[in-house]
């Protein structure tokens, strides 16, 4: 069985992180689109930490006999990997767009310097 202290601390920390994410959205420092995965992560962790029987049952399913809270770590790890993977795709898209912006700027600058107006596209 999960030690009671682990459940309490786990729940408090997860809920606090949910509040942090909501505050970041509110103050326009985090877009909803990128916040959803984090919220999902912390809500899942909060539920698993608070719902002690559930954590034990799931630990049984996945063959964790000695120490159920290990499941918390496993779930957290999987979610964090998902978030990182998502961010990698986001960063890739941003760098592609950055290249386009730089090229566009160079073309505009050339036009301003007196090149013949560029043909469409």
């Amino acid at each position, binding site marked *: 069985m999960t030690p009671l202290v682990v459940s309490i601390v786990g729940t408090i920390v997860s809920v606090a992180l949910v509040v942090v994410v909501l505050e970041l*959205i509110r103050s326009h420092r985090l*877009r*909803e689109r990128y916040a*959803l995965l984090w919220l999902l992560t912390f809500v899942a962790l909060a539920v698993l930490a608070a719902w002690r029987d559930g954590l034990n049952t799931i630990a049984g399913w996945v063959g964790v006999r000695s120490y159920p809270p290990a499941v918390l770590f496993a779930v957290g790890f999987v979610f964090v990997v998902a978030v990182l993977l998502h961010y990698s795709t986001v960063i890739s898209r941003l760098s592609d*767009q950055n290249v386009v*912006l730089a090229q566009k700027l160079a073309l505009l600058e050339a036009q301003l310097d007196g090149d013949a107006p560029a043909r*469409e596209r």
Partner: protein
Amino acid sequence: MREPRRVAIVPAYNEERSIGRVVDELHALDAGFDVVVVDDGSWDATAEVARAHGAKVLRLPFNLGIGGAVQTGFRYAFEQGYALAVRLDGDGQHDPGQLDAILAPVLSGEADVAVGSRFAAGRGDGYRSSRSRRVGIRLLAWVVSRIVGRRVTDTTSGFQAVNARGIALFARDYPHDYPEVEATVMVSRHRLRAVEVPVAMRERASGRSSITALRSIYYMVKVLLAIFVGLFRRNVLPEEGS
């Protein structure tokens, strides 16, 4: 006195087949709109067609999504000092012939923002859409009506008219991705007066809606989150008289 300058903002993404007609119809109106087409990174000839039909074209270097595209139009309207802006989609589903109806409450000073609604006068029967979308539309309508304290039937309508105050707000802050729902709440939080006007919408002239079933669930969750968090935000514009 000179008529206030008016601009029609038309976001378009790969609408080369319908954009020409939309621009022509806008020019044919007596209202005297300057037409601005925001080409949201189309890979077809949308920009060229719009320009050929006499529209001013703002061409985004890549696809920003509808929110970013529409806000580009409002930023332009704000910088150019337009007193009145209407927004309608480039796919032809919004009939420029119905602009008078949504312009009226803004021109009379009754509202800062007027939105054309497909459902306001029980006219929804003419409009076809998937089941998941209808459920979503109804849920959003319920939530939004609760929050803004007036009955909103069509939360996703992009057929709207706004005055200078609305232009200033949208130029400053406009939601992303699926913006109309959040914008409705934002307008109400900023104490702008908004009304819904019944209109009929046409079938899309070409292309298909960019919203599929799975996406609409994602958008639903995202929009509800955005609305919820938005309730705790401070306003970007000072209130009138403060």
